[in-house]
Each structure stands twice: as structure tokens, then as C-alpha cells.
């Protein structure tokens, strides 16, 4: 798509955050992009504070549309916002984001000359003046999520997609049929899966940044959220069984059922009230550990509590043992699809990358002449393979076998080559 005269629709769904949304609107008034080409649509859903009154009286320098919904459902709010939008580019932004001045322009520029692009904007997390262990830990994980997308050849998956800062052409949004209702959490992941299935190209833009001013999430809220994530992942998995593996840290459970045989899981299934009480008490132990500056103990406890509440969310959705067995078994018994394509690197890396860019297979076998290097397997929920992915994997996971194949085929030591 696009160009210089693109009309941009910025869609905001908000729920009881009057100060945040006011700050966001004020910032959108000072964009570097021509204000007459911007329209802002705010959908307030289930608000009980004075958000609605503020929005009704808001004097905006841009075209401003406000819509009120009584239902507390963010996905529906975003869809309603999109249905009111008239721009050819939609930017979705969270109500707790403070966008940079070049935010809209950077989103627009990132779409230039790119078909079916979905631009994921950078969202640095604002830290409190004296951050606690939880905030420091969260910031490191949060930042890592964005920084890995900046590595050349990174293979995007649905998990990289977030509703807080992304842009998409109105045509692609319509083609994807918007967000699904009924998922209070992980609705962004669900939308990401469908976009990947449609062959959308995910692009990360550092310049399309906005500061994520999450002023309400603390360790209590985050652990609650973990439980909701667990529930939402099960629902998501039920909707897209072939496309995702629930992030249950499955790699840690090497054998079938092993996580259910684990003592904690046994207790968990035996008496939820007891384990819930223990987990709730342990949460307060984290504050004691922080006071005593026992960081490694704090980290270990934090990790276990997160896992507990995540698994607890699973149990909310799959309340009996048989179903709990069924999910991991189903995942482990899934057959890996056959490799779609084979590529030889001997004619040159450039030729191989060009071929992959053209064919975009879901999986590929790689060889160098007669030597087999390895494969890039089908990855559920990840985008199709391109040339940059090949370079990335050859330089990292496949580097050793690539070196061996290269030296055997060239019949000499790499050093001398």
C-alpha cells in the first residue's frame, strides 16, 4: 500500500481509565502527521467512572468520534471502532499508552510498499522512580519481547502480536473479519493466528513507539492475570488446535503425564482450596524476601507462583482429571507435518534465500550438496519461512551442522577455506 495522503484511523478502546485516555488524546493532538488526515475513534466499554463525560466534552484538533458500549468486552469495542472508521490505515492503541509525536507517521511509513503488512509498534514500559523486584523483572521480560523482533531474520509468531500498538490496512482487517468475541484475554493472540494464516507480514517498528504507562499492574494483579491467561490459553487452543501449543512450558515435561504426576499437580488436583491458600500466603512471602534483599529466592518463588496460577487457570477451564490428561496428550501425539520443500545451499546462500522468499514454505529441509544440514520444521502459529529466517538459523541453531557439511563438501578445513 500507500502513500503520503493516507487517512489514518486511530482506534482506542477504553475502560475506566479517564486520565490515561485523556493523556493519550492530548498526545494524539500533537502528531507530526497532518492532523486533517487523522481521525480518532474512542470506544468506551462498560465505563463507570467519568470517562464518558470527559469524552463527550473533549475538544479535539482532529476528527473525533466517540462511541459508548455498556458491554464489558474489549474485542467487541475494537470491532465497533473499526466499523466506524473511514481511514485506509487502522492503528489500534491501548488507552494506557502515551504515543510519541511521530507515532502515526512512523506507522504509516512502515506500511509503504509492503503488501499485507501488520506493523507492531514499540512499547517501552515506564518504570516507577524506585522500582521493586517485580517491576524490574517485568521490564526485563517486556523489553526482551520487543528486542528479539529487531534481530535480523526473526521468525514472528502470533505471540508477538499485541493490541496495544499495531497498525493494519482497513482491507486486511476486514479480510480477517476483526476480533472474535468471547475471549476477554488472548484476543490479540487469536487475531494474530488468523493474520498469520492469511499470510500477513509482521513488521516491527521502533519508530512507531509509545510509552506503556501501566500504572495499575502490580504483583497481585499480575498473578490474577496469570490465572486468566491459563483459562484463555485453553479456550484459544480449543479454537486453533493445529496452530498453537499452549505456553505451558511443555518442553519441561519430557514424558507424557509427567507434569500431572508431579507432586504439586497432585496436590493441586486433590485440594484446590488448600493449594490456593498456600499460594496466596506465599505471595506475601515474596515481599518479605524482597525486604531481606534475597533476590534469587524471590525469583524462584515468583517463577513457581506464576506457574501455579497459570496451571490453576487451566483447571478452571478443564475441571476434571480426564480433560487435564487429554490436552498434553493431544499435543504430544500430534504428528509433525511432512517437510514441504528441500533447498540446496551449494549454488549459493543468495540463491537459496531468494527461492525461499518466493516460495515461503512452512517447513524446509536444508542440504549442502550431498550433505544434509538439517531442517527448519513446521512451527505452529509462526509465519512461513523466508530467506532471512534461513540466515538466522544457519548462524545460530544450525551453525555446527552447516560448518560440518560445508567442510565435508569442500573437502578442506574451514580455516583454509
Amino acid at each position, binding site marked *: 500500500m500507500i502513500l503520503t495522503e493516507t487517512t489514518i484511523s486511530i482506534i482506542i478502546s477504553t475502560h475506566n481509565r479517564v486520565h490515561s485516555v485523556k493523556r493519550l488524546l492530548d498526545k494524539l493532538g500533537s502528531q507530526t502527521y497532518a492532523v486533517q488526515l487523522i481521525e480518532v475513534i474512542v470506544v468506551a466499554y462498560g465505563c463507570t467512572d467519568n470517562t464518558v463525560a470527559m469524552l463527550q466534552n473533549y475538544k479535539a484538533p482532529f476528527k473525533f468520534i466517540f462511541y459508548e458500549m455498556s458491554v464489558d468486552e474489549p474485542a467487541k469495542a475494537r470491532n465497533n471502532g473499526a466499523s466506524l472508521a473511514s481511514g485506509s490505515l487502522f492503528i489500534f492503541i491501548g488507552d494506557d499508552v502515551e504515543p510519541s509525536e511521530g507515532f502515526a507517521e512512523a506507522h504509516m511509513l512502515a506500511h509503504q510498499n509492503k503488501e499485507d503488512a501488520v506493523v507492531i509498534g514499540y512499547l517501552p514500559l515506564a518504570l516507577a522512580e524506585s522500582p521493586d523486584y517485580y517491576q*524490574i523483572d517485568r521490564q526485563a521480560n517486556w523489553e526482551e519481547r520487543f528486542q528479539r523482533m*529487531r*534481530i*535480523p531474520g526473526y521468525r514472528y509468531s502470533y505471540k508477538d502480536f499485541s493490541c496495544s500498538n499495531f497498525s493494519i490496512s482497513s482491507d486486511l482487517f476486514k479480510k480477517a473479519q476483526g476480533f472474535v468475541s468471547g475471549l476477554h484475554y488472548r484476543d490479540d493472540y487469536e487475531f494474530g493466528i488468523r493474520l498469520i494464516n492469511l499470510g500477513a507480514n509482521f513488521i516491527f517498528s521502533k519508530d512507531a513507539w509509545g510509552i506503556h504507562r501501566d500504572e495499575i499492574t502490580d504483583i497481585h494483579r499480575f498473578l490474577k492475570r496469570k490465572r486468566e491467561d491459563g483459562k484463555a490459553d485453553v479456550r484459544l487452543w480449543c479454537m486453533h488446535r493445529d496452530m498453537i501449543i499452549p505456553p505451558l512450558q511443555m518442553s519441561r515435561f519430557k514424558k507424557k503425564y509427567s507434569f500431572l504426576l508431579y507432586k504439586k499437580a497432585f496436590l493441586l488436583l486433590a485440594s484446590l482450596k488448600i493449594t490456593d491458600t498456600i499460594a496466596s500466603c506465599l505471595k506475601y512471602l515474596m515481599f518479605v524476601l524482597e525486604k531481606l534483599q534475597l533476590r534469587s529466592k524471590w525469583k524462584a518463588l515468583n517463577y513457581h507462583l506464576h506457574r501455579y496460577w497459570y496451571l490453576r487457570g487451566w483447571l478452571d477451564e478443564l475441571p476434571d482429571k480426564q480433560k487435564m490428561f487429554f490436552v498434553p496428550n493431544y499435543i504430544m501425539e500430534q504428528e509433525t507435518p511432512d517437510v514441504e520443500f528441500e533447498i540446496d545451499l551449494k549454488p549459493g546462500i543468495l540463491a537459496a534465500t531468494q527461492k525461499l522468499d518466493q516460495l515461503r514454505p512452512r517447513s524446509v529441509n536444508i542440504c549442502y550438496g550431498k550433505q544434509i544440514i538439517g531442517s527448519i520444521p513446521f512451527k505452529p502459529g509462526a509465519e512461513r519461512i523466508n530467506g532471512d529466517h534461513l540466515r538466522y538459523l544457519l548462524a545460530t541453531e544450525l551453525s555446527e551442522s552447516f*560448518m560440518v557439511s560445508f567442510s565435508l563438501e569442500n573437502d578442506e578445513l574451514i580455516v583454509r577455506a
Partner: protein
Amino acid sequence: MATAVLDLDLINLPSEITGLTAYLKAFILIRFKGKPIGKITVPINNGSIRVEQIYPVIISEVEPILKKVWIKDFLGWDERDKIDFTYPKATIAICTRDRPEDLRRCLDALMQLPDDGQEILVIDNCSSTDESKKLVESYGSIRYIYENRPGLNNARNRALEEARNEIVAFTDDDAIPDPSWLRALLRNFNSPLVMCVTGMTMPYELETEAQEAFERYSPFGKGFYRKEYSLNTWHPLNTGKIGAGANMAFRKEVQNAVGLFDEALDAGTPTESGGDHEYFARLLLSGYTIVYEPDALSWHRHRRTWKETKKAIRGYGIGVYAFWMRLLIVEKQLGIPKLAYTWFIRTQLPNVVQSLLRRPGSQPLSLLVTELQGCILGPWKYLQSKRRIKRNHLYHDSY
């Protein structure tokens, strides 16, 4: 007899290196296309080294890292070259005190850096003569600043304050940065959480036994692999392996993020060292990342005499315990006693035993004992340094 220090690139190996009659051994830095990938020490026969004879030693030493470097070079891929990354501009700061000859060598080396718009700043920390000032003025483009509060950390703080660019890269006056040094440091400021990058430092000369002993005992080089240090990957109080003040760079905003360097630490105060490592610890504790980048190469002239070397090692012992004392009483880091105990039991004590038993490769007992003496003095020296600063502030306030 002295050890020759040589620098060889695998892409351009000579068949023979001659003119080494004054040496019995050679310490060789091995590079691949300019990138340092390993070091070897080989004997010298009749004043020359035939490269084909040392080839197996080179390969066995550098093979694992060479594979990684070669493959990235072959593919034209590097994880450091993040999408959208533009190199930030830098200010190079040299803190100096009464060492005009060393300073000249350092500034000459900095003149060989490619011009990326960097600023060079010399902070003269209470030199007794104006030789350094005259020297700096002779270069024309270098800014000279006189810092009248003695102490290396005061000079570093002044550099952070005076720097006009986003990154402040520190080098010691007795170091000689490689032409690619600055770019290699800057390349790693590719994420907002990277607040500091340290580089690798190799010995500039090993002409005396004391210099050889120093290089064996306390090398500034921390290996040939790039490493990222953060709370998730490293014990934040154990910062000795992260790098050294002779070769490090920070974002200028670091002073807002974690405060200034502690003026009670490092050279020019009773604590003698430790200012850099204490600052690294503070950065890690605040959730920032420190990158160790071996491509950011600099050469350091170690102290030539035993007396100077022993003084330096004693100073390191004092510095470690002084900065741990600060972390304990100022930052309330209760893990310090355990760390001190572990260091003593797992490293210092076994080293002393090895040395007493005269095991091959063991460190000189005199240096080990000197360091232990420093360790014992460290906490008191920190308190003494704090008292001295307080007294000075009171003195200045009263006038």
C-alpha cells in the same frame, strides 16, 4: 626474559616473524578479519617464529570461536546488527593524573579512530604540573578540563557531566585503544536496557617479570566471547568478571538512572580501586544490562616494577572489599558476606595452598598475600574515605 607482544590476523599471516632476539616467548593476539578471537603464548627460536610451526597451536586455541565468527561473516549476519539501529554519538573521556607520556600514547591512538563525530575529553585530575594541559592543547581538537577534587570517580563524574554526546566511553591514560574500539563499543548500545558496554584489554607490553606476573594474576581481558550480563543471567554483586574501568562506556543518562560514581571509591582515595565494579553492580541491581564486547579492544601498559605491581594488586584487594562495604551499608545488599566467604573459600584459599605447594601454574605467593592484606583493609579504607570526604565537605562549607 621478556615476552614479545604480537598481533596477527589469520587473513594476512606472514610466513615468518623475525627481529625478536630480545625475547624468549611471544604473547600473540589472534584475529580474524580484525576481530580478536584468541591468544597464544609460544616460544621464540633464534629470534624468529615460523608461523607454520605454530599453526596447530593457533587452530587448537581459536577453532571453536573461529567457526562462529567465520559463519557469521560468511552469511553476512550478526545478532548485534538490530533492525533500525543507528550508531549513537560518543564522547571519549580520558581521566589522567601526572602521566603525560602515557597520555600522549593514548591520544595518538585515539587520533587513529575513524571520524564518527566523536568528541574527546581529557579530565586532568589534580596533576601537579601543566604538562598534560600543554600536551592536550597541542592536539587542537581535544577538550581539556581540570577537575580539582582528587579521585578517579570525581573525574569520571565530571566527564559524565561535561560530555556532549549520548555515550561516554572511558579509557585510562595508560591504555591504547584499537582503531575499531569505539565502533565496537557503540554497536552494542542497541537496546535501551543496555546502559554499559565493556571491552577487552590486552597487555601492551610484557617487558618485565612484574608485567608478566600481573597479566597472569589479574588480566584485564575477560575472554573472547561476547556476554550479556543482567539480573537474569548473573549475580549482580559479583562484577569482577564484567570488565574494567580502563575500557568501558555508558549512556550519559546513567547518572539519572543509578546516580553518580561514588567519590569515596577508586584511585586517588584510600580505597585505591573498585569504583567501576561498584557501579556495574548498581546497574545490574537496577535491572539494566551490561555487555562485554571483546571486539572493543584496547591495550594496557601494565606497571613495570614489582613494587608498582604489588601496590596495584593490594589496591584491587582493598577496592573489592571497599565496594562490597558500600553495597552492604548503602545499598543494603545482605548477600555480600556470603559472597566474600565464597570467594575466600573457593578461590583465594585454594590459590594460596597451590602456591605453598609450588604447584605448576600457581600464582606468586607474595601477590596472593598482598591481595589478602588489601581485602582485610578494604572495609575500613572505605569508611576512612567516607570520613575524609565528609571532613572536606565540612571544611569547604565553613569557608
